[in-house]
């Protein structure tokens, strides 16, 4: 209880509250703009966190994360153009509802479902985080190695249906992580005599390049002068009556549970959760016939689920130090810069910080509701900013993010190179998330493998004598072989 009060005291500062509000608003704005999304939003605010205290910077990041997941649904409803991939399922019911003149009601459903889904995920975080952290205390380096390999395979394996390219991307990430000083022997690896490379390639400039720069380079290909008509963007907010809500509480709960479960799995994310929840809602709804014509059941299910991902995705990130997607990888990078070391010790020694994160998430979800209810019309005006101007502005702020980590112009060039490579790879359908996750997990996988080999006197087969590790290895093999098995089954 004392720790909760301590955490509440840490949050109740003007700076933290300001960061929660600003972060959420920026997140919603980024979500509203099609093509940007959570990672670019987080990359944009990253430089602001470098010189901030721990709690306000975490609050800012959480605000952007949750706000951006919600913001995408506003454009999905009004323009049938999801601002983020997570909101793609929302457009299926939201846009027809807007077409029949109920855009304000659709926003009411979406905002409330998003907030409740987000709050549900905080509950999951509160319950599952400490449990997973306690469980992970039994982990030796062998389990961490197995977990790292499993997470890598999940992320690479489920990448946009391009498993081979996903695995190649993951391998590239692991190789980038191995540049610099070897952590055990102190030898230089792949530095080619460069002083800058001896410190390794920093994660943040690569994230900035791979996501923000490459997205801006590719946006040029889709530039059009077409802007939505002002009357299309006139939208208010109307709260659905409680009697309509009462009929859909089961749908809300089911969507939240699906989102919380999917969010904790590596390599999935909010878009997957939203589509699973939507198809589940369509399958079980009593109003099946209305689907595709603006049925609130579908809206409630997918919005509750995509926002329920936010809290549960933080569970493996904070309890194990294993990020499940690029968004949590950026969050992890920012936390490490702030001096937070994710893992079981975080829950054992810094419980006040963990409680502060819980409370921040609750506040962010409440602010998100207020932001959506009061500012929906305002946010849609952002769509009027000409894209050529926006591209320049995002490139400038992203450059500050790349530079600000180490104050090095070398990092700007790293970001640029990552941006060009990212644009080319994206054009050719290589998923980019595995590169970043490979860079994050590379040092953990390498160190735990080497420590595990020391523990087992160099006998790698002894890794299979540990039950948790064996289960994780079997799951890894299953993920790798599943496409082959599936193809065989389909051919039959």
């Amino acid at each position, binding site marked *: 209880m004392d720790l909760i009060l301590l955490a509440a005291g840490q949050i109740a500062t003007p700076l933290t509250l300001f960061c929660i509000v600003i972060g959420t608003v920026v997140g919603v704005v980024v979500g509203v703009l099609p093509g940007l999304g959570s990672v670019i939003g987080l990359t944009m605010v990253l*430089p602001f966190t470098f*010189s901030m205290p721990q709690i306000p910077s975490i609050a800012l990041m959480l605000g952007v994360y949750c706000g951006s997941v919600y913001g995408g649904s506003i454009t999905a409803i009004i323009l049938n153009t999801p601002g983020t991939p997570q909101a793609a399922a929302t457009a299926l019911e939201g846009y027809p509802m807007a077409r029949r003149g109920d855009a304000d009601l659709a926003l009411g459903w979406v905002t409330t479902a998003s907030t409740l889904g987000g709050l549900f995920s905080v509950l999951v975080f509160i319950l599952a985080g400490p449990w997973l952290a306690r469980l992970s205390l039994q982990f030796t380096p062998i389990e961490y190695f197995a977990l790292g390999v499993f997470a890598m395979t999940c992320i690479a394996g489920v990448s*946009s*249906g*391009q498993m*081979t390219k996903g*695995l*190649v991307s993951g*391998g*590239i990430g*692991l*190789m980038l992580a*191995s540049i610099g000083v*070897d952590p*055990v*022997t*102190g*030898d230089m*690896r*792949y530095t080619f005599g460069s002083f800058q490379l001896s410190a390794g390639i920093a994660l943040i400039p690569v994230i900035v390049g791979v996501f923000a*720069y490459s997205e*801006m*380079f*590719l946006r*040029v*290909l889709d*530039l059009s*002068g077409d802007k939505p008509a002002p009357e299309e963007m006139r939208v208010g907010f109307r709260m659905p009556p409680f009697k309509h809500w009462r009929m859909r509480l089961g749908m809300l709960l089911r969507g939240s549970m699906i989102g919380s479960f999917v969010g904790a799995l590596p390599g999935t994310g909010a878009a997957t959760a939203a589509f699973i929840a939507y198809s589940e809602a369509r399958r079980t709804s009593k109003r099946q016939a209305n689907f595709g014509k603006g049925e609130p059941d579908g809206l409630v299910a997918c919005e509750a689920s995509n926002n329920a991902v936010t809290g549960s995705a933080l569970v493996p990130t904070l309890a194990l130090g294993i990020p499940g997607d690029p968004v949590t990888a950026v969050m992890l990078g920012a936390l490490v810069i702030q001096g937070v070391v994710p893992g079981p010790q975080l829950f054992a020694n810094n419980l006040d910080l963990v409680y502060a994160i819980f409370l921040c998430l609750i506040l962010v979800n409440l602010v998100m509701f207020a932001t959506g209810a009061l500012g929906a019309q305002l946010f849609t005006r952002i769509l009027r900013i*000409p*894209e*050529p*101007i926006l*591209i*320049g*502005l995002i*490139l*400038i702020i992203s*450059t*500050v993010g790349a*530079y*600000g980590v180490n*104050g090095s*112009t070398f990092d*700007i*060039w790293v970001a*640029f190179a990552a*941006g*060009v490579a990212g*644009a*080319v790879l*994206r*054009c*050719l*359908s290589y998923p980019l998330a595995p590169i970043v996750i490979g860079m994050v997990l590379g040092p953990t*996988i*390498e160190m735990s*493998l*080497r420590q595990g*080999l020391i523990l087992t006197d*160099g006998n790698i087969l002894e890794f299979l004598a540990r039950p948790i590790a064996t289960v994780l290895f079997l799951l890894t093999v299953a993920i790798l072989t599943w496409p082959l098995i599936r193809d065989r089954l389909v051919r039959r």
Partner: protein
Amino acid sequence: MAEESAAPPPRATVITDRAVALVIVAVTAVFFVLTFGEVSAFARASAGRGPYFFPRVVLVLLLIVETVLLFSVFSPRHPMVSRRLPSLRMGLLIAATAAYCALIPLAGFLIASVIFGIFVPVLLGRRDYGVIVAVALVYSTAVWWLFERVFLIILPASPFDIGF
């Protein structure tokens, strides 16, 4: 839409896909060869698990996966998903960004950002110069002021010694 997905991908995209796959394989091979380079005496004494032990494991697995990738991209049934082709504008934006990166240490962050903020919209077809200049000036100055003065992140200064 269905028609588009049924059509074969543009030849240039197929060639680029193959070229990129070959470049990735070549870089992997170079990295793999480098794992057999000279290491310190301490590393040699570490029971064969020196600095290149982990990279070598990763690179062997990567080369196996890349073999599958090569078969896939050189196969007549090319499983390409994207049909996006780079445009001249995209090339110019990349060149402008490279110039911006080079200009930052030379002219300082603020001057470089103002120039870049004006140049990019013009490059991408905007002709409302008043708005573009105003936005570039206000935005770049605000970002510079916020980081340099509020967050105390020292950004590269201009060589003119005039405070920014």
